[in-house]
């Protein structure tokens, strides 16, 4: 009962952050759109060989957001791209936060040579220019969604690892951990019962912020033409627009919507992350 009341308190705390609530609403809408995309988008509407509309149609009655260089509806492309962007953002963030948490907890808890080695690896990844590494990875590995996720995940974990390590060290210094050791608790007990529960709230906050940067990274890679050519994503739309001359055509309707959508979703994730941070951090 009291666990629920605590959750209730947290929910009330979150609801007090208006910006966070607005972000959450935006994300809910985006998630809904991506889940319902198959209902909106007829099977052959995005097939280049079957479209009937003319290329570069400005927004109008038939096409709310106009058409692209092949006559496909930009509005339907946007709907179709939502899922890809969110999926890549979420999985890449989970991967990066997962690696970061593992490295952080292990190096913070065990210390010694292992921690030294892990920290050097973390430093190495921290100083690597993430985008360059991601580009290198996606050129070497077969092109596809998996590669993009791997490239983003492998380059963005060091900051999480640093933060989790710092938090682990502060928890390990607390007397209740000493008490657990004196009770006979081993590594698994100390990590599982004391370290992880205190690290998880921070990690969750970090994950929402990581999703935002993963979405930006995905868009960047796709814009540079390193994305999955068979998938439609917002970054890939920008890539197409740039490739087929949306600017000389003055086809703003092909450039603005994906750009704005990226900004809005990233902002929404950031707002939610900040609000969560304010809720889970104990007040002083």
């Amino acid at each position, binding site marked *: 009962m*009291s666990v629920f009341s605590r959750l209730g308190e947290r929910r009330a705390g979150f609801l007090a952050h208006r910006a966070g609530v607005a972000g959450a609403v935006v994300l809910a809408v985006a998630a809904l759109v991506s889940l319902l995309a198959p209902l909106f988008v007829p099977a052959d509407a995005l097939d280049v060989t079957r479209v009937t509309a003319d290329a570069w149609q400005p927004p109008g009655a038939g096409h709310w957001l106009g058409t692209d260089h092949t006559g496909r509806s930009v509005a339907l492309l946007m709907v179709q791209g939502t899922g890809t962007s969110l999926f890549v953002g979420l999985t890449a963030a989970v991967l990066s936060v997962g690696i970061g948490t593992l490295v952080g907890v292990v190096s913070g808890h065990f210390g010694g040579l292992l921690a030294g080695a892990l920290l050097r690896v973390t430093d190495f990844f921290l100083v690597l220019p993430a985008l360059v590494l991601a580009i290198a990875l996606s050129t070497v590995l077969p092109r596809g969604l998996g590669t993009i996720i791997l490239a983003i995940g492998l380059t963005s974990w060091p900051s999480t690892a640093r933060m989790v390590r710092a938090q682990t060290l502060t928890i390990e210094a*607390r*007397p*209740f951990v*000493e*008490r*657990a*050791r*004196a*009770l*006979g*608790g*081993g590594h698994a*007990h100390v990590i599982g*019962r*004391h370290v992880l*529960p*205190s690290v998880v709230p921070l990690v969750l906050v970090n994950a929402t912020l990581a999703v935002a940067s993963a979405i930006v990274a995905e868009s960047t890679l796709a814009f540079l033409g390193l994305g999955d050519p068979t998938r439609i994503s917002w970054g890939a739309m920008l890539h197409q627009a740039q490739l087929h001359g949306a600017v000389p055509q003055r086809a703003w309707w092909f450039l603005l919507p994906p750009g704005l959508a990226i900004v809005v979703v990233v902002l929404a994730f950031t707002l939610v992350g900040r609000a969560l941070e304010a809720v889970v951090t104990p007040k002083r």
Partner: protein
Amino acid sequence: MLELKNLTVHYGHKRVVHDVSLTLAPGQMLGLAGESGSGKSTVAMSVLRLLPKTARVEGEVLLDGEDVRTMSWGRLRAVRWASASIVFQGAMHSLNPVRRVGEQIAEPMRLHSTPGSVAELLEQVELPREKARAYPHELSGGQKQRVMIAMALACGPRLVIADEPTTALDVVVQAQVLAVLTRLVAEQDLGLLMISHDLSVLAQTCEDLAVMQGGELVERGRTHEVIANPRHPHTAALTAAFPVIGAPQHRWTEPAPAPQPLLRVRDLVVDYGRTRAVDGVDLTIGRGEIVALVGQSGSGKTTLARTIMGLRKPSSGRVIFDGAEVAAKGRALKAFRRQVQLVLQDPSSALNPRHRVFDAVAEGLRVHGVDGDHEALVTAAVERAELRPASLYLDALPHELSGGQQQRVVIAGALVLQPRLLVADEPVASLDASVRGEVVALLLRLRAELGLASLLITHDLGLAWQIADRVAVMHQGKIVEQGPVEQVLLTPSHDYTRALLRAVPQV
């Protein structure tokens, strides 16, 4: 000089100070005693209007006849530190760790553009003037507290408020700091308002005493009269809670015949890098015996306890428990830890703030994979620790409990494994006087009912007198004297033991 008239402070609807009237003259030392939550610190903060904005202050706070409550902001800033200053509690947290202490002492002088020299101030508090260049972490606890006092004196105030100036210092250092304060009051004709939960400290230094309880002033008068004939029951309870070494009514235990040894420590040495923390210690604890290990902070007593528990590896020497040497790791060490349990000084940090009482107590059962009905075992342990009925407490989070209740939860967490030895590191040092007695009695009762032996690590000789069978005095890593309580505390043979006993404040 300072006059409080009918001071009342509310936080929202909660009244924390009610109708307190006090006066303080130059050269006078007034002690303000009370337990945590009695409102004594709030009274102190109201003198310099340092209370948060949410506090509603009524009544008059007259500083040299001027009401602090109605002063303009500029006037208040001029009065702060120049007329009245504060020695905050917890010197380790009140100093900026990244600045030299000399700069920090000079800070109020610069703000008020008062002339003076840091070197002179350091001399007044009996610190060498070179220490001005030291950073806080390079100083000991007592030295930091002196820096705080020097800082309070920087602008030549006439009133100094000392909020728990010696809490967390050991007896010897405490005596030195109190001596410095007393001398300064006499030399500079200061008024000193000293706040403490420790009646014996106030009795030692202040000629006048005021006692607060629940926000009200319950008693006030000359110290020796108040202590000798307390008129209010709370004062009487506070006075009784501080054991007098040598007084038979404060000796709560009977000396037992020499029991069989349970734990033996042989020639134990522990090094921290190049420092030798424990230097060849021999110690024996019998079955059901309570042994007090006393000494100043830094004497190595905590390291010794940690090593006995197997939390640190000894450099050499042996720990023998129940006839067998304690293993360094693996299953044997785990089995040993089931028999020996640790009770830490500060119960609020010894409990994971996210764990409910049930989980905190059941932790040991889970670690050791004990079969059986955990709920029944936990309930029994919690009730043994005198939290009755257990059902009221099992679902509570640590912050919902008082300090005494938290310490009982820690003790219950130890009892649930049915240990044979309890290692208690300052088990009552952070508790209020009234709770302290109950927890001490609980330890004694556990010995009587369960035959539980204890190693009490403490700098509090009074606690040793109350319940220990034997005392071991530790100094610079060595045990300099050990024996039955009466012998060591009443007829000490080592100089260091005598120095410790001299430093104990007397009520």
